[in-house]
């Protein structure tokens, strides 16, 4: 065991100690920032100061992919290898980077200075293949020198943001971060001002009337959620903003955070006021370091301006917001797993019921909303539910953000009213299929989604139409594959993603994602065994029907839809 100095860590622990176990992840992240990994002595110090059992500290360290127990390179490079990035050449990039490292980096010193990791989706799908150098995204890395690359010097990606309307993304299209002054100049925080004159129940009624449903994928009516938490008698109550955006193909929350942070903060504040919460958390996925910095700065601005803290805008309403960073776990996007993570535990999803609105974070009534959901709120309050309902369809009111990536001419984020067709989104907005090819399939809803084909082009993008078409809307992800793509490789990568990201709690998902991956490996290498199709289906159905949480319940969704669409794919290679 190498001796380390705890000196730099101790002042941080002094600050975190009063919070106890909930500060575990921040403390481990702080230690990793100092030492590059979490040395044993640091883990012991953290355990002692936060009063967390040593074994539990270990359990947490082991759960999160971005935390290391052993030394890693000074520079950590993450390369996404999920379908979108794979199609854009992620494997080649991974190989090239590793080769460059062999040549430039490895021989210089015995201890590696660079660690290169294959990563799940980094939320940079429109810039595929995605690459993070020490949390900084870079594009076209092949064009830089090795030294520049590992220093993170290079071209930063710029996103295409478009669509038919710009309600949620109005501020995102300015090409620069909209800080507080600008945000206010555009009429920002007027909704909050208005809300503070209303009774909390009125706010809830307005949101209920708007018909807003959650944009994270589950589409639960937001107003009902708020009402339920407001009616819970237990105290205190919490608001949590779920910014753990990790569904492969999704990057909408990233775009909102990195451009218009105050829009999200305003949404959070309104939610907090409505349910009577005095404390809140915003949980941002670990890979979004830059977005975390933007949000932190925005929170600081808001605090200085009296928008967060005691007696907000001279009212009786007080609210504190704490930003949290994830540490590399897709499952933490699941609301109860996210609570566990904030509480300083492994991100295991909980058994429901009880639901978050009665027993959520720390066992208290909690409203947890997705970033995009909360971004809708200021508009609803300011313009009123009636005005809001003019956008979209009757059953799916409001604007919706779609993340379009893959084989399209203009991969990017598109804001449309619910009800436009898939064709409109794909061809009119995203520029159609790249290289004048035709579309073989589009994956709706990310890894947890299902495939659409040409015949679905005229489906209207609403909850009700997609339900009929048997397609999930999910969080608004559409990944497009052209005619040349080998769907077996796509499925293999999706299966790999789930096998990597399963938390391991319930048997169907813990074992099923592994078995599914194994069978799809055989599929990809044309070495299917007799009975593999039936096996794959049994595994898929069992995961779908018997898993504990949404991850397992959707882990076979894309595969099962592929079996329905392309049965020949699973038969032709069978060795008899």
């Amino acid at each position, binding site marked *: 065991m190498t001796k380390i100095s705890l000196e730099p860590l101790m002042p941080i622990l002094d600050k975190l100690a009063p919070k106890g176990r909930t500060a575990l992840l921040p403390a481990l992240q702080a230690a990793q920032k100092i030492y590059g990994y979490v040395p044993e002595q640091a883990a012991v110090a953290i355990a002692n100061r936060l009063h967390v059992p040593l074994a539990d500290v270990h359990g947490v360290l082991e759960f999160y992919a971005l935390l290391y127990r052993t030394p890693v390179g000074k520079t950590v490079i993450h390369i996404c290898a999920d379908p979108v990035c794979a199609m854009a050449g992620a494997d080649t990039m991974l190989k090239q980077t590793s080769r460059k490292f062999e040549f430039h980096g490895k021989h210089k010193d015995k201890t590696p200075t660079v660690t290169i990791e294959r990563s799940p989706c980094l939320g940079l799908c429109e810039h595929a293949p995605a690459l993070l150098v020490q949390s900084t995204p870079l594009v076209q890395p092949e064009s830089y020198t090795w030294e520049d690359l590992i220093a993170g010097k290079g071209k930063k990606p710029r996103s295409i943001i478009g669509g038919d309307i710009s309600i949620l993304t109005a501020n995102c299209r300015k090409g620069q971060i909209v800080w507080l002054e600008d945000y206010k100049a555009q009429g920002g925080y007027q909704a909050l001002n208005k809300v503070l004159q209303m009774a909390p129940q009125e706010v809830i009624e307005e949101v209920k009337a708007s018909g807003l449903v959650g944009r994270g994928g589950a589409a639960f009516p937001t107003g009902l959620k708020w009402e339920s938490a407001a009616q819970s008698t237990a105290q205190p109550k919490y608001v949590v903003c779920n910014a753990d955006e990790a569904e492969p193909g999704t990057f909408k929350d990233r775009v909102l955070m990195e451009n218009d942070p105050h829009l999200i903060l305003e949404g959070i504040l309104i939610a907090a006021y409505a349910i009577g919460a005095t404390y809140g958390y915003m949980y941002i996925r670990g890979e979004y370091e830059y977005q975390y910095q933007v949000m932190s700065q925005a929170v600081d601005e808001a605090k200085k301006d009296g928008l967060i803290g005691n007696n907000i805008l001279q009212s009786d309403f007080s609210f504190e917001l704490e930003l949290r960073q994830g540490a590399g776990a897709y499952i933490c996007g699941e609301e109860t797993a996210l609570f566990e993570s904030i509480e300083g535990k492994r991100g295991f999803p909980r058994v429901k019921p009880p639901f978050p609105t009665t027993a959520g974070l720390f066992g208290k009534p909690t409203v947890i909303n997705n970033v995009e959901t909360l971004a809708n709120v200021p508009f609803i309050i300011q313009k009123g539910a009636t005005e809001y309902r003019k956008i979209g369809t009757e059953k799916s009111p409001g604007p919706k953000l779609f993340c379009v990536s893959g084989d399209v001419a203009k991969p990017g984020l598109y804001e449309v009213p619910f009800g436009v067709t898939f064709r409109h989104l794909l061809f009119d907005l995203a520029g159609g299929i790249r290289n004048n090819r035709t579309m073989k399939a589009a994956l709706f809803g990310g890894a947890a989604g299902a495939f659409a084909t040409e015949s679905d082009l005229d489906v209207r993008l609403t909850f009700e139409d997609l339900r009929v078409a048997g397609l999930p809307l999910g969080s608004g992800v559409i990944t497009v594959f052209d005619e040349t793509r080998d769907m077996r490789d796509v499925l293999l990568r999706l299966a790999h993603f789930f096998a990597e990201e399963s938390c*391991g709690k319930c048997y169907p998902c813990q074992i099923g994602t592994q078995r599914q991956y194994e069978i799809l490996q055989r599929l990809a290498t044309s070495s299917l065994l007799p009975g593999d199709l039936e096996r794959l289906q049994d595994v898929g159905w069992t995961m779908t029907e018997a898993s504990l949480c949404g991850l397992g319940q959707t882990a076979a969704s894309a595969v099962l839809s592929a079996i329905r669409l392309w049965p020949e794919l699973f038969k032709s290679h069978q060795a008899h």
Partner: protein
Amino acid sequence: MTNQITLTIDEKEILVPPGTTILKAAQSVGINIPTICYHDYCTANALCRICVVEVEGARTLVPACVAQVSNNMRVRTNSERVIRARRTILEMLASSVDLSDAPDILAMLQEYQVDTNRFPEAEERKPSVIDDNPMYIRDYAKCILCWRCVQVCATDAQYTFAINFSGRGYETQIGTFYDKPIPETTCVFCGQCVGVCPTGALKPKKQWLLEQGLPPAEIVQLTRFNRSANSRCR
């Protein structure tokens, strides 16, 4: 009593108090729902999913060990969906770990006509036996991750917190702080974990030695050094 809940399980009408789980309600009328991770004296986590049943109106199958009854609920404990899920879970489990020391699960494999070789070429979990203390061994090739040991070591009984998890997903294993040998952890050797282990993954050392073929006469003659042959000494 007026505040009883009425429901039907497999067409049988049942009256139970509110808060009763489907598992207990079924037991009360002699309907046996299989369980693996569930233990009457441990926190129920509904993680093995072997106890899933079909509840009319529910999108997915429902774990009977934690799901509470509600009025007019209609439950089927043996529908085709249920059987398929149970059988597949058991087949997957059999393809992952050594169940030879888990009589209850072996009986279940029979009952559900499980093909234990359903998943050929599947990666098994078979780490080697950890023999690092004089009291018990840890053979995680037999561990089904029911969580009971971790829970009794923590707030279900002992408040000792010597063990937790390593890894995640299929790679999950029960582990100690920085993989230290058990004596170097906070373990007090109460053996609560051994007591709740359903698969022989945790086993008293003497039992293990006996199973290794060592006769009792030789076991009792082992020296202190032999007893901790694989352990680190100061």
